[in-house]
């Protein structure tokens, strides 16, 4: 018994010390100037969780040891509780670099508007990503699970949704690529609108699973020392569980990715498809699938198929049509070199009509005012490209009732049309010698679009303030 007590004291004491270190660190983080008020909510909630964890550990330290638990079980119990500290640390890591010195202010407000267009009560935290990748995390989900595991109440002032969006920091100024964020916003929409439930069940087929089972089994079986009989290097049960778990993980994950692509397309229109093609073609192989993502070739094909129906070629600029036709040819080919699990996921998705099911489910679930329609594209992209060609920020558009603010997808769709058309007119407006290379021109153009998004946001805020005054709101 004394050794149990000593072990218990040591483990809880060191875990409590580390809790205190986290509390101190969060105090320092709280003092930094942040780009979003949501960060303070996350910090406050984590401080609350840490205090609760500390008191749980203190109880483990002082409560009598249950006589029916041995030393190993006591250690495992403390270990399990102190493991929450790792989760808290992981959440701190998500917001650690979101202070004002790391994120350009001109991006924050326009992107917050986009988040609020889909989630009116959503808060946004933007962080610079060291990787060449975009990502989104709904932090509130993990905060709530953490508090549930600690058996604590959720603070009443915690915003219902806090999204942490990571943008490649070396490409903060690449406005056109930021359309990828439409896909990222698609992930929480996919869950919120329960799209997975709406496209389920998806039949994989008994024969296909059996074939996969036998194929994988043949690959991993090893010969017995005498070479006469072959056996699995682990239990048959484990192998069965491996197949079951992997198929049940890969297919739903791929379905969510394709669904998020659909959301990206339906909320941003062609701009998302064009950005996705550019984004993928530079850093990913078209046939490179992973456990979490279908091959880009297949994703591009599904997006282009949908584009053809929703945004017929005649409504697009000539150069955009050419660009899309080239990619349609490339994407038409079947992805190759997939592993057996990836192949089964792709075959199932294709044969079970999952893409159409996804599209129908999303179309029925996403309200019209949250979509970017063909009608809106036709209405605004023409006038906005004219503004861009004249180097006038496309932040507003002239209507029957005077100037009204455009939308972020509108600016970016017009931006892509101009970009694919070669930016000749835009270049003519620049002072001579300003842009000597295509890359300098592209850079200038993207900066111009970021500025347009910022002006658009200012115009919207102004309208909102004016309406508040008129309606008597403070």
């Amino acid at each position, binding site marked *: 018994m004394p050794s149990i007590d000593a072990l218990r004291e040591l483990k809880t004491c060191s875990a409590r010390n580390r809790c205190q270190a986290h509390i101190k660190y969060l105090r320092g983080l709280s003092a930094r100037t942040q780009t979003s008020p949501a960060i303070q909510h996350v910090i406050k909630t984590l401080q609350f969780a840490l205090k609760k964890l500390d008191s749980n550990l203190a109880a483990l330290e002082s409560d009598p040891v249950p006589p029916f638990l041995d030393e190993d079980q006591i250690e495992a119990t403390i270990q399990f509780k102190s493991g929450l500290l790792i989760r808290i640390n992981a*959440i701190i890591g998500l917001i650690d670099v979101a202070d004002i010195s790391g994120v350009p202010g001109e991006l924050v407000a326009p992107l917050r508007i986009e988040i609020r267009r889909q989630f009116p009560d959503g808060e946004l935290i933007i962080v610079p990503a060291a990787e060449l990748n975009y990502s989104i995390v709904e932090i509130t989900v993990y905060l709530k699970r953490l508090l549930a595991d600690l058996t604590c109440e959720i603070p009443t002032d915690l915003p219902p949704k806090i999204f942490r969006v990571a943008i490649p920091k070396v490409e903060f100024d690449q406005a056109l690529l930021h359309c990828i964020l439409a896909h990222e916003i698609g992930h929480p929409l996919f869950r919120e609108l329960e799209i997975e439930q709406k496209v389920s069940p998806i039949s994989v087929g008994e024969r*296909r699973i059996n074939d996969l089972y036998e194929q994988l089994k043949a690959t991993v079986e090893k010969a017995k020392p005498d070479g006469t009989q072959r056996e699995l290097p682990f239990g048959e*049960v484990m192998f069965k*569980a491996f197949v079951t*778990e992997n198929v049940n993980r890969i297919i739903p994950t791929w379905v969510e990715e394709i669904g998020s692509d659909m959301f990206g397309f339906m909320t941003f229109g062609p701009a998302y498809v064009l950005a996705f093609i550019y984004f993928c073609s530079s850093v990913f192989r078209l046939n490179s699938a992973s456990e979490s*993502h279908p091959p880009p070739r297949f994703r591009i094909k599904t997006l282009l198929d949908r584009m053809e129906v929703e945004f017929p070629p005649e409504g697009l600029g000539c150069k955009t049509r050419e660009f899309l036709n080239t990619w349609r040819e490339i994407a038409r080919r079947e992805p190759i070199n997939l592993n057996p699990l990836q192949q089964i996921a792709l075959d199932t998705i294709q044969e079970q009509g999952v893409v159409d099911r996804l599209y129908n489910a999303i179309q029925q679930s996403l309200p019209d005012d949250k979509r970017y329609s063909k009608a809106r594209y036709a209405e605004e992209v023409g006038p906005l490209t004219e503004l861009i060609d004249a180097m006038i920020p496309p932040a507003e558009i002239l209507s029957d009732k005077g100037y009204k603010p455009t939308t972020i997808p509108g600016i970016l769709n017009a931006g892509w049309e101009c970009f694919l058309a070669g930016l000749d007119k835009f270049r003519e407006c620049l002072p001579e010698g300003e842009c000597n290379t295509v890359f300098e021109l592209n850079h200038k153009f993207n900066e111009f679009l970021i500025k347009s998004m910022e002006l658009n946001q200012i115009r919207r805020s102004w309208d909102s303030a004016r309406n508040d005054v008129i309606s008597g709101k403070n």
Partner: protein
Amino acid sequence: MGEPDRVLALATEAMRGGNLADKVIFTLAKAAGNLKLEKQDHEVLRQAVQFLKEVKSGYDWIDEPTISPESKTYAFSFKTAASSWWQMVSSPLQFVEDINVMIKTTEDLSEDKPPNRDSLRKTRLFFDRVFRHSIDRFSTLTARPEVPELRDAEY
């Protein structure tokens, strides 16, 4: 889903099995010590029965393979159970028999019927192994660079 989201999701998921096992171990230890089971112990036993039934559904999934939100839960529970118990059985049939025995044991306990002592010992050992497996899985997942599945792209 991006990498940070996946890491947190998988780590939180790993904790789910462990969280239940932690409570079940405590309750089963009380039962083994002939201590009176309280209301919350019965709730824990109900959750244990549900988990074990999910394991069985996950085991049977391969005979009628259909993907749904429920099948994901079954598959996760089956994988957790198999990873924790495969070394204790010599065949898939024995695995199923063991799970059936454990279902019967936890159901008996939840109805305040005295369980078979050997079955109770086996059930305790099973949840103990689930608990340790969950802790190890959590540690592996949070040591990110060692997990190839977490290094995927996240666009």
